[in-house]
């Protein structure tokens, strides 16, 4: 029994997860040991919960989730509407709901349920039947939660839906010229979406394009985080020896900007190590994806992979000025229970895909 369980585990996935969370807790400690709150212990607690869920997911099996994906999707939309109405206002944005002593961030769960629903929807139809309708349906399914999250306002999280949609459509078999015209259409439509953005979101984008514009606000954050990462150099300043991120020049240094701490204290070597670990995680997911015969499971795994990748890319990219400043956590590394648990659920699904890779 136990042997069977062990056999079903996917070790590269587990190793990557463990290493990333350990790195996260280490740098949460380094960045916040001066502040009250024992953030590293709280993160340890969340990691425990996350891992427990991860190992339990195969018991339910990803098929259960796929078959109830539309229901989960509907629930997450209701939750999003609820934050809109009753959510706590934190840092000027409505992103949390309190349930008893817990606060949850519905956008995290909306991401996952949208991936599930899209995988289920696209996986149930072949690309040669009624292609146009399916594509339009998939676009609509993505746009609804995306719009609600953008309204919260949480531009960063809402933009994560774009790579999910693009990747899943690509893998599903959309005609290349459709995909290419969609990209062009998106570029054309972007100015129209502009009007839906909040003032500060517009500012962030403008500042990204021209950092000179706003020396006081996000331009300051942008340059300070760049200094923090850059000053780490090749070798880094040593663990807990960072000065930029430690001295509060960089805001949110244990959550969204935790990479600044790592980049400053462990330098380029540390950054390469982190990227290598993410690469290893992606490699593990690719393995799972290749070995399953279930097309829906392939799509599901690919969707999970693309969410995690997009978050990593935007988060690290923003600290070195390659991406605009967006409030996105670095998966498994940033402090935060909601993010950790929801990624654990996602990887738990992948683990379940691995376990049920062959049903013959």
């Amino acid at each position: 029994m136990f042997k069977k369980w062990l056999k079903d585990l996917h070790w590269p996935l587990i190793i990557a997860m463990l290493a990333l969370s350990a790195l996260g807790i280490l740098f949460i400690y380094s960045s916040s040991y001066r502040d009250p709150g024992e953030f590293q212990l709280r993160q340890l607690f969340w990691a425990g919960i996350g891992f427990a869920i991860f190992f339990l997911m195969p018991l339910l099996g990803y098929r259960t989730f796929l078959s109830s994906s539309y229901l989960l999707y509907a629930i997450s939309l209701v939750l999003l509407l609820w934050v809109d109405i009753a959510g706590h206002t934190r840092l000027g944005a409505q992103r949390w709901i309190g349930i008893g002593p817990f606060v949850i961030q519905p956008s995290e769960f909306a991401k996952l349920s949208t991936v599930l629903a899209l995988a289920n929807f696209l996986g149930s139809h072949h690309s040669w039947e009624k292609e146009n309708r399916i594509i339009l349906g998939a676009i609509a399914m993505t746009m609804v939660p995306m719009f609600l999250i953008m309204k919260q306002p949480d531009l960063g999280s809402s933009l994560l839906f774009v790579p999910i949609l693009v990747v899943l459509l690509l893998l599903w078999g959309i005609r290349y010229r459709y995909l290419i015209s969609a990209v062009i259409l998106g570029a054309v439509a972007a100015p129209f979406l502009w009007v839906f953005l909040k003032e500060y979101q517009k500012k962030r984008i403008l500042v990204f394009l021209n950092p000179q514009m706003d020396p006081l606000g996000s331009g300051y954050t942008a340059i300070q985080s760049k200094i923090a990462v850059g000053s780490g150099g090749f070798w880094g300043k040593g663990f807990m020896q960072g000065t930029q991120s430690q001295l509060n020049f960089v805001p949110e240094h244990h959550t969204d900007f935790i990479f600044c701490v790592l980049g400053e204290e462990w330098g380029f070597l540390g950054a390469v190590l982190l990227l290598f670990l993410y690469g290893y995680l992606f490699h593990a997911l690719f393995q799972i994806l290749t070995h399953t015969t279930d097309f829906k499971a392939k799509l599901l795994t690919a969707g999970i992979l693309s969410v995690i990748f997009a978050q990593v890319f935007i988060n690290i990219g923003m600290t070195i000025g390659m991406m605009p400043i967006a409030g996105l956590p670095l998966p498994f590394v940033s402090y935060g229970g909601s993010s950790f648990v929801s990624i654990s659920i996602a990887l738990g699904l992948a683990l379940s895909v691995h376990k049920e890779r062959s049903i013959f």
Partner: protein
Amino acid sequence: MRFIIFRIGIYLGLGILMSGLFYTQVIQGSYYHTLGDKNRIRLIPLEAPRGRVFDRQGKLLATNRAAYDLVVTPEDMDKETIPSLARILDLSEKEIRERLKAPREYPFAPAVVQEDVTRELAFLVEEHRPELSGVEILVSGLRNYPQGTTGSHVIGFIGKINREEYLKTRDNQDQFGLNSTIGRAGIEKLFDSELRGWRGGKQIEVNSRGKMIRVLSERDPEPGRDMTVTLDLSLQQKVMELLGDKNGSVMMLDLATEELLVMASKPAFDPNFFVSPSAASERLAYLNDKASPLLDRGVSSAYPPGSVFKLITALAALDTDKINANSHFFCSGQYRLTPNSIPRKCWFARGHGSVSIYQAIERSCNVFFYNVGKKLSADQISDYSHRFGLGEIVPIEATNISAGLVPNSAWKKKQFKEKWYQGETLSFAIGQSYLLTSPLQILRMTAIIAKDGLWVEPHLVRNAKEKRIPDRRVDIKKEYLQILKKGMIQVVQSNYGTGQLARVDFGEMAAKTGTAQAPPKVAHAWMTGYFPADDPKVAFTVFVEHGGSGGIASAGIVKGMLQQWEETYVQKVA
């Protein structure tokens, strides 16, 4: 195939990140290292100059002047800084250390040690720069009110933002900073968002000693919008002079535009004391002063109107057919409600004899209005008061607007659990009992009468009169207003009139005086009216707190004010 494209895309993305990091950390690493060394990038917020306030003639009421602030960047100090600074400023070292602990908006932002230092001190500090590492003199804009106490209640004042307000406005970094000011009263408070501009800032690179090497990026602050109020400064000054050391409120309204030309209240305060960092003791004195100089007596306070209110009583009686233009009552100098009740006196002990409504207004006969009051109920008088805006907030660009108090039987029941007595109706009819009105409400009532029943909404800011309900009328017959107006002309123009001291030689005036009992002190003196009587251009209300007789204390102010108005608005135009 598609899965291979996807896989390649992901690894390519990681490759891009890695090369970006290589560029930032390895190639540019040493550059960022120097920048980060002692945090070489600093942020200097630049406060926006606040918009100025002008009077209707374009004279300055509020502006900004340059001030020198002595600031210190604690990270740049050396051992000598604090002792030397203590010597120069004549402060204890402990005090300076205390001031350096104040919260700062950004890391390495300079802390303000002393605001608005003298020029001499500023130069002295510049001379001693070598031994004062980290000390700087920054030029900032300080609010300045060149007219001092004149118009201070209208303009209001500003103050330093407090912690709570700062936290509330934190998302709006472009407008509010840790050291920003915010409107605290009057126009400064109500139009704060217009007057306040947009902050700018400079990101500078400094060397290891904290000296600027170059500006990395800069955004100029955008000054706030200038505003024009409807006051006429020279008229307002004249009125302040006429009030002398008496307390009270004087207002004058342009009837065509419904703009207030004068809105003066005494005692007044000097708003400069609220912005000058060194005037803490004066500020405290204002707050503790029993005469409450911060109170705008015209807007925020309410008093018994006395005989001025007889206008409303007369209208109520006319409109309910209790009296008509030919009604007469006999005044023997006193009046008894029933044969057994204590007699109420007319102010003229010998009695006015048989009086008509016109004479009753002209001579302000109490007995006539006691007779009228007996025919009316308190609720009827109350109803007509509300029709003319008494007991109602006057929507005007001011803070703490008083609604006054217009009683009725239901109010009394609720307040005192007692029924309304007819004796109280008699007092109510001559503007006493529980009735309280603000001078602004009396002014509006007068203006409505002058405009034959057209509704009036006084304003203090130009061009604010946009969303007015067009031609809203008070529900009253014009002929009754004509009766009132005829009586009001006699108040000033007749030799029996109570307001004849206000008479001017360039036209006929219509007015009503009031002497409101305010025991145990001397009565309040009122006079309200409009000019010229045949084609009203302005309405005015003068209220002198404990000024005695309305026909004496207030009439002189009315006359002086109108003479000045005539000089500026009639003679100069002609």
